[in-house]
Every structure is written in C-alpha cells, then in structure tokens.
C-alpha cells in the first residue's frame, strides 16, 4: 500500500482551525498547514513544537558580541592604538566605553541577521530556493491542511477523507508520494 498525501483546502483560517480541532480530537495527526499569513492559535491545536529561533538569535548575538570585542581590540588597541580625543588606549578596559556603541550595534546586527537567515534556511525559502507549497493558492487566499496516511495508520484513507468532508472544506486533493 502506497503512502498518500491529502490536501484539504479551506477558505478561512477560522474554518481551518475548527477542522484541525475536530481532526485532532479524533486522533488524526495533522502534518502541516500552509497559509498566506501566520494563523494565531493554530500551533497548539496541531501540536507544533515551540520554535527554537530565540535560542539561535541569542547565540548569534553572543557570537556578534565576541567578534566585535575581538575586532575592536585588534584594530584599536593591539594593531594600531589610535589616539582619539586623548582617550586612554593602553588597555582594552580603559577604552571600552568608547566601543560600547559598536559592540551593541554589532551584537544586534548579528542577532537579527543570523535569526532571519536561519529562519529562511529552515523554511527552505531562501531567495532562489524552489517553492515547496503544494498549492500555489496557499500564498494568496487559501489555507491548506496536509495529512499523510503514513502518520495515521489507525485511519483508512476513506475515513480520513470522510472526516475532512464533514468539515467546512472547499476541496480535497490526494496525491501519491
């Protein structure tokens, strides 16, 4: 028996949420949802794990701060100590106050860019990557719910589509995979 993917298309995020709630309470596992914008309150319904993006951002921030400390130390203290306004430049700690803006900005720059790029890589949506969404309309005004038979051995294909049909579904597309 080959595995099948079932895509259920909805016209409204609320209808999709109701459907997802109904399916999950019947013990169906929802694999994914494709939508034009983030649907509030969907994550806990389909049991998505919490994002670890914040941790990534923090790590990039720490990385940026360390890099900025290294850079300012090398450029301004070690390699070519510069006398700007008579500020002490013999040791790093004497002059660290003037580096604070740079340290701060570089930390923010790294955290923000690191987070954004990680996000795009994880979503496979970096510029130039091939689109993965099963239905192009899910980038416009439709909301697509993805079920996989391999996740739902307890239910037959027919019972899955039957359950979907009971919800306010617009159309159901099945595909071999």
């Amino acid at each position, binding site marked *: 028996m080959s595995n099948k993917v079932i895509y259920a298309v909805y016209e409204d995020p609320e209808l999709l949420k109701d459907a997802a709630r109904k399916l999950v309470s019947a013990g169906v596992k929802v694999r994914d949802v494709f939508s034009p914008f983030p649907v*509030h*309150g969907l994550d806990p319904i389909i049991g998505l794990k919490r994002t670890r993006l*914040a941790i990534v951002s*923090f790590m990039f921030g720490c990385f940026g701060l360390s890099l900025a400390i290294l850079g300012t130390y090398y450029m301004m203290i070690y390699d070519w100590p510069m006398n700007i*306004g*008579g*500020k002490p430049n013999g040791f790093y700690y004497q002059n660290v*106050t*003037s580096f*604070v*803006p740079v340290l701060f900005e570089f930390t923010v720059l790294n955290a923000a860019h690191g987070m954004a790029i990680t996000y795009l890589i994880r979503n496979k949506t970096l510029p130039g990557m091939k689109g993965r969404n099963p239905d192009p309309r899910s980038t416009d005004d439709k909301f697509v719910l993805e079920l996989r038979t391999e996740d739902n051995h307890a239910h037959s294909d027919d019972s899955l589509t039957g359950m979907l049909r009971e919800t306010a579904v617009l159309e159901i597309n099945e595909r071999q995979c």
Partner: protein
Amino acid sequence: MNFTISKRAGTTTLVLLAVGVLLAAIGVIGDHTDNRQYSWAAFYANALFFFFIALGTLFFYALNNITETGWTVLVRRVYEAIFSYVPLGAALVVIALLAGSLGLNHMWPWMDGRTLDTSDPNHYDAHIALLRPYLNLPFFWVRAVLMIGTFIYFARWFRAHSLRMDQVGSDGLLREHWSMYNRSIGFMVLFAFFSSVLSWDWIMSIDVHWKSALFGWYVFSGMWIGGMVTAVIIVLYLKGKGYLPQVNGSHIQDMGKWVFAVSFLWSYLYFAQFLLTWYANIPEEVTYFKVRIDHHPALVWGMYFVNFALPMVLLMSRDTKRNPKFLIGVGVLIFIGHWLDMVQMIMPGSLGDHFEQIGLLEIGFFIAFLGLFVRTVLGALAKAPLTVVHHPFLEESVHHQI
C-alpha cells in the same frame, strides 16, 4: 468582579506607613545638616519617585488610547488605580518645592536670592544670574502649576470617563471611545513637553551648573519603567488573590515584555548621556558624573547593573516572563533599582559631601511613601469593577493570545 482590600493588605500598608514615619522621624531628629537639608532631600527623592510612577502610568494609559491597543483593556483599571495617586503625589512634591522656594531648604541654589546679589561675592554666582530669565521663582511656579494642573486634570478626567464608559450602552460606546482618544492626544502633546520641562525644573536645576540635553528623556524613561514594573506587580498580586481570571499568560508575558523593553530604553538613554559626557570630557559637563561616580561608584554602577543587566538576562526568555513568582522577584528588584536611580539623581547634588551612603532617612521615607502609595492604589482599585464593563476592545483583550 469587584476588588475588596483584604484585612492583611490594609494592615500591612498601615504598618508600612507607621514604621516608615517612625524611622524617618528618628532620621529627622538625628539630621544635623543645615536646614535639615538631608531630610528634605530624602523626602523629595521619594516623593518624586512615587509621583513619577503614577505619571509614567498615566502616559502609558494615554499611549494605549491613542494606539488603540486591544490587549491592555482587561488591566486598564490597574493603570487607572496607579495614576489615581497623581493628585496626592503632586501635593507631596509641591511641599518640597514650596519649602525650597520659601528658603526652608537650599536644594535649589538658584532659589536663594543671594546668588544674584553682585555686592555679596561669597554667594554671587554669575552662571545663575545668566539663567535668571528662565530660572526665577515666579516663572518656575507658573510652569509648576501649569504642569501639575494638567496632570491632575487628565488623570481625573481619564478615570471619570472610564467609569462613564461602564454605564453607557453599545450605542454611545464608540462616541465615548473617540472622546477618550482625542483627549489622550491632547494629553500626549502636553506630556511630551512637560516631562522634559519638569525634569529640568525639578531635578536638573539642583545641579544648576550642569546641563544635559538627554536628561528629559532619561527622566521620562525612568517614569515609564516605574509604571510598567508597578503595573505588572499589582496585576500578579491580584491574580494571586484570584482576581482578574480572564488575564492569561499572554497578558502577563506582554506586560513583562514592556518591563524588558523600557528597561532597555532607560539604559540606552542613561548610557548615551554618560557616554557623550565621558567622550567630550568638558569640565562643566563632567561635574555631574564626577560627584556621583567618584564618591558613590557602588551606587551608580550598582543601580545601572540592576536596571540594565538584570532585566536583560532574566527577562529575555518567554518562560521567565510567564512565571509569576519569578516576574514578581525581578520586578521588585527593578523597582528598587529605579529607586536607587532616583536617590543618585537627587541626593549627591543637593547634599554634596553630606551624602555618604543610603541611611535611615531615605529608607524611612521610602517605606512610608510605599505604604501611602499602595494604600491609595488599592483604595482606587476597590472603588470600581476590576475590569471595564464596556470597551470597544474588551473582546479582543479577553481573547488575547501571542
């Protein structure tokens, strides 16, 4: 649901008030500075600190009205209760300003007429004479009355209007909402101006030879964070007592986020002011920091650490902002941190070498003011339903989820 002050809370605030007054009285008796200047400075620092909390909350309330923020609707009454302290707090601040004007204390050197007398070389101060067109008593009091009058007027009007909105049906609700919106804009324009003016008049002119263009913002961000911290502590207290059942984790997390964000704003402004002064190294600018950092390094850097590093590290993650006990703990620390900030703003400037470390007077007045402040806020909370009955965004706030 209505809030009733528990017996324990009622007694606690009274005990705080009594203990604070007692400690402060012992401090005042033992105060040997001229004109009991130390007592006045300690009184004034605490009066300002709690007045600023109410003022910061008033600002945030108006900001919510203007931006039509939905999620705060459930906790509006808490903000209203905090800024109900504005009239009382203003009266207490005015006592200290009045005493300065009458010569009962000499915290503001320019209020002393001798500084303008050219025939008195011991007291004459050319710099103060230069500032006379702005810093003179009649103009100072015109500004003070105007500012305090504005704050009291808007605090009372917002509160009364919010109670009025509870009464109207769904027909008049939108009209009432727009009326609130328009008044908030009026308040915000005035507040933007007055928050800077009051920081120059009431605080910066203590160190009359020193100027900083960033000072107004720095003081204002201090007010704001004070309001945010106090609001989240009170909301968590009420939730702990079983009130505000509709306030969920998302509301708490958002309030924690405000504490986190405004802490950053405050740190940014404080440090920007310090950095520019440090870098330019102009004698008339560095005096302010010289007095503070040379004599009280632990106070200045300690309060900066508590107000910047602690919220940054401890409130960064989502889980800590959703943990009531943890959030209250951090909130109390930041509250104390900003009290230390106020102490280092007022005390070294008005006392010079007489201020060595925080003692009985500061702490005594702090406890007394805390009792008075909490008593006023809880009293205002008990006077009206704890959540607004009608508001265009009430539904949105109930279903707030992030």
